[in-house]
């Protein structure tokens, strides 16, 4: 009888536990990171009675946490990949929106600007046309500055995001360290299910911010490191990450950890997670877009200014800068200790690229590294690279370094210098003179000034035809007013046209001059009806002179927009794929560890019935006992 009661009691207690585990599952059905638990039963060791083993009932062997380590780790990895793809895509789509087709700001401003230049060519002395050109130029500068500002804002947001994410990462590693301490006290096997759930949830949250490796130690604690092995957490001791300013750019945040010797930069080791995504966006898309845009600005202002300075304005003066000229800078690292200074000059805008360069000193030599293709030049300088000349002066210490971003420099400095409509140099600075007294048919055409230093002319240039200019029987032009004569020109073979160059002038001579005929190149004084230079200015639009003669300004812009579009669309589809993969991984985990209410309902019924049956055992035992009592008590 006692056994019957004992067995019944053990069953009642066991099913109470089972019911409470089930209730706990039901209660936590919506708890994030909760792992369902089941109750394991065990038959109590039987007692040997008179040669038979009699069972002693049931006991709870344990409450099991149902989970799969591999599936959980898969979720960590997927969280990192998704976090990275999602944050990259969300920033990229903001950049993408800046260039949306309904807001084709910069492109149409460029088009309108060059159209306005053609309007000036149609009526070179008209003030309204000139005013309109300046108006369009202002519009263009505005569009540039809108884009520049938006990109800088995005950059600052990225920096802010880096700071915030780094501090969130630190909070998470500290929380995990706390849990490590609690869990290792009890040993791995006795770890509380809820604490393990919580730690698992925190690691997943951490993985969504940065990709980490989590390795469980024998004492139940979890060690966490970045993918390159940089430790973030060992047992209970945390290495906190810090966000600190880039040595060249105070608005750019880098990630590292601090040592007594200074910050150790681990930015390049950060992969995955929202932090990895945002850093990748900055490196791959944002800075690239800034450089590309800067390149367009540099190309525009330099090409336009160069041509403008070859022309003559309405007052008869040689053209001034139309856009403000800009200076290129080498930014010294904040850690430089030497006194060296670096000057950067742009020699040839047609060779300029969007690349950044780093110039570093190793104690004997300077090395100039192109960040884009990693090509280097070593020596004492000056270095010449992609149209830029870099000159070093002063004494440097080993380790000193400078950053050069010539294209990006131009972006912030793109502004309008010309405010006076009369200052627009629509006319050519020189004109051709063919005196009426000539009896031959020689004429000059396609006169080009190659360098603004040649104008205005010191004195009129006169070419006088002389059949013996270069010795007896060798015809050509005697030249006055400029060095470089006499010029060979043989009317019998070259009357269809010969290109001659004289100092900084290039022109074509054709026809047959008579002995003594003169051709002149004069300052174009009073030539306000001349539109030659305005046409040349408008033609810059179609000029494929950039990137070594392969691209026009418009080509650069559409390439940049296409680049942003391609990277954004790739990022968006990657984010979608990663979301699906993460979802699948979470589903897999949930299908093992998640609570299903129907299942719990069934368990509830099952355990309830078993409990009722066990209670019935007690009742049977009581009936048996009473039967016995009544039988003997007579």
């Amino acid at each position, binding site marked *: 009888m006692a056994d019957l009661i004992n067995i019944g009691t053990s069953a009642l207690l066991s099913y109470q536990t089972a019911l409470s585990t089930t209730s706990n599952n039901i209660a936590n*059905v*919506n708890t994030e990171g909760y792992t369902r638990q089941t109750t394991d039963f065990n038959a109590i060791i039987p007692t040997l009675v008179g040669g038979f083993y009699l069972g002693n009932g049931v006991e709870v062997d344990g409450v099991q946490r149902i989970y799969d380590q591999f599936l959980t780790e898969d979720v960590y990895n997927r969280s990192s990949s998704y976090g990275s793809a999602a944050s990259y895509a969300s920033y990229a*789509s903001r950049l*993408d*929106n800046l*260039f*949306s*087709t*309904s807001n*084709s700001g910069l*492109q*149409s401003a460029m*088009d309108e600007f060059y*159209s306005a230049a*053609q*309007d000036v*060519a*149609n*009526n*070179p*002395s*008209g003030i309204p046309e000139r005013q309109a050109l300046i108006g369009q130029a202002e519009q263009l500068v505005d569009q540039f500055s809108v884009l520049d500002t938006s990109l800088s804002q995005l950059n600052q947001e990225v920096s802010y995001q880096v700071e915030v994410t780094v501090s969130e990462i630190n909070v998470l590693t500290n929380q995990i360290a706390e849990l490590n301490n609690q869990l290792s006290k009890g040993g791995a096997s006795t770890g509380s299910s809820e604490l393990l759930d919580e730690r698992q949830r925190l690691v997943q949250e951490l993985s969504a911010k940065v990709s980490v490796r989590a390795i469980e130690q024998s004492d139940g604690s979890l060690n966490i490191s970045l993918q390159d092995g940089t430790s973030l957490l060992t047992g209970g001791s945390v290495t906190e990450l810090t966000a600190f300013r880039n040595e060249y750019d105070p608005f750019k945040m880098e990630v590292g950890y601090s040592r007594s010797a200074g910050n150790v930069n681990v930015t390049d080791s950060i992969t995955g997670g929202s932090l990895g995504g945002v850093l990748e966006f900055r490196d791959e898309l944002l800075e690239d877009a800034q450089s590309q845009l800067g390149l367009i600005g540099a190309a525009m202002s330099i090409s336009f200014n160069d041509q403008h300075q070859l022309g003559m304005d309405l007052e008869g003066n040689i053209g001034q800068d139309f856009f403000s000229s800009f200076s290129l800078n080498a930014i010294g690292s904040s850690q430089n200790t030497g006194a060296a200074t670096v000057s950067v000059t742009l020699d040839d805008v047609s060779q300029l690229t969007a690349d950044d360069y780093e110039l570093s000193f190793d104690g004997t030599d300077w090395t100039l590294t192109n960040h884009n293709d990693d090509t280097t030049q070593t020596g004492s300088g000056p270095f010449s690279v992609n149209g830029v000349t870099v000159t070093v002066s002063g004494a440097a210490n080993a380790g000193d370094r400078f950053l050069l971003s010539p294209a990006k420099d131009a972006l912030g400095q793109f502004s309008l210098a010309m405010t006076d409509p009369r200052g627009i140099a629509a006319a050519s600075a020189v*004109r*051709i*003179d*063919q005196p*009426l*007294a000539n*009896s031959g048919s020689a004429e000059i055409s396609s006169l080009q000034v190659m360098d603004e230093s040649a104008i205005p002319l010191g004195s009129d240039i006169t070419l006088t035809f002389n059949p013996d200019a270069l010795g007896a029987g060798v015809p050509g032009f005697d030249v006055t007013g400029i060095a470089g004569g006499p010029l060979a020109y043989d009317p019998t073979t070259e009357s269809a046209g010969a290109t001659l160059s004289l100092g900084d002038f290039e022109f074509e001579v054709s026809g047959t001059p008579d002995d003594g005929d003169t051709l002149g190149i004069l300052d*174009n004084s*009073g*030539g*306000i*009806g*001349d*539109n*030659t230079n305005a*046409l040349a200015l408008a*033609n810059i*639009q*179609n000029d494929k002179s950039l990137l070594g003669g392969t691209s026009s300004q418009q080509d650069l*812009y*559409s*390439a940049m*927009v*296409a680049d*942003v*579009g391609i990277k*954004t*669309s790739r990022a*968006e589809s990657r984010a979608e794929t990663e979301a699906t993969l993460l979802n699948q991984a979470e*589903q897999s985990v*949930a*299908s093992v560890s*998640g*609570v*299903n*209410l129907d*299942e719990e*309902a069934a368990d509830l019924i099952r355990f309830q019935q078993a409990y009722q049956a066990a209670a019935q055992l007690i009742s049977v035992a009581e009936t048996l006992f009473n039967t016995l009592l009544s039988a003997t008590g007579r």
Partner: protein
Amino acid sequence: MRLSTVQVFQSGINSILSQQADVNKTQQELSSGKRVLTPSDDPVAAAEILRINSEMTKIDQYLDNADMAESQLELEEGLLDSAENALQRVRELVLQANNATQDSETRGFIAAEIEERLDELVDIANSKNFNGEYVFAGFQSSTAPFALQSGVVSYLGDGGQRFAKVGASSEIAVGDSGVDVFMRIPSGNGSFEYSANSANTGAAQLGSSSADADFISDSYTVEFTQATADDPITYTVTDSSAATVATGTYESGDSISFNGATLDFSSIPDDGDQFFVTPTTSQDVFSTISTVVSALDSVLDTTASQAQLSTELSLALENIDRTATRFSEVRTDIGTRLNRLDSQREINTSFSLQLEETLSDIENADLTETISRLNLQLTSLEAAQQAYVSVQGLSLFNYI
């Protein structure tokens, strides 16, 4: 597979959310009518759209430029038409003056009218366009190019010629400098001009001249000799180095030819009368006409003086003919440019249409396709919502 309850809820919600995002995207396409809203929608198309839009702006500008060029060229053509008429009238007057029946009074009337025509020509040459620029001043467009002072015209413009860009690689001159239209005109018959020695006393005069391809450009002197009135008249032609190039006898109305030149004389010269032939130079229409006026004003009532006038008027007629040729050359040239403008405009317009078509293919949403896609998406969104509601109603707890 075992599912957790949260999973069931979540996947239902997820599918509704993603369907909603799709519907939203399609709705944006429909409301904007555009398939490509941001570069990431179709990066290649986005770059193409930028290029096409820019190309279309350029073409619009080329069409504007062509309109501008056309009105300037038409203005110039009209001016040249008036100039031709004035010149034609001068030619008639010169012919009229070169008639033996004229006396000094009628010559005076003719001279007065010619002078007025000269003023008219100067006015035409000094015309302004609708921008207030002098049409024939070259680049000196704010300076009246022709200044007439006591019968002498000076040119204050320059030889500049303006161009307009009317196509991607097509520039058309929208004007001609006054020096090319009115001034740099070959004199005489285009190879040489002639004059009578002012000391001539005979009645001989030069009526016309011609040159063939063999003409040797040089200065020549034709001298007539007749020792006594009974002798035949002989002539000797010498070149600039005093070498004799031709000799012969002359009778009234004979032509004298040498080195490719032919001179048509009439009447009888005196012994020692000379005529000069010089290579052609540049003449301007204004001084040609001024010369006529002063010749008419200064002629005396002597045979010799009138013979000289006649020679001078003959040369003036040749000069006027050269000028008329120049005017019609320039007008032909303008006509060619206007034709080029028209064909360029056609090219531009058809290119623009083509671009617009391409743009609409690339950029615009296919409405039929988009609307049916929206309907499909709405249907599956509704289905997802219904499925969610009915699945959520299921629970074993409903039965215990």
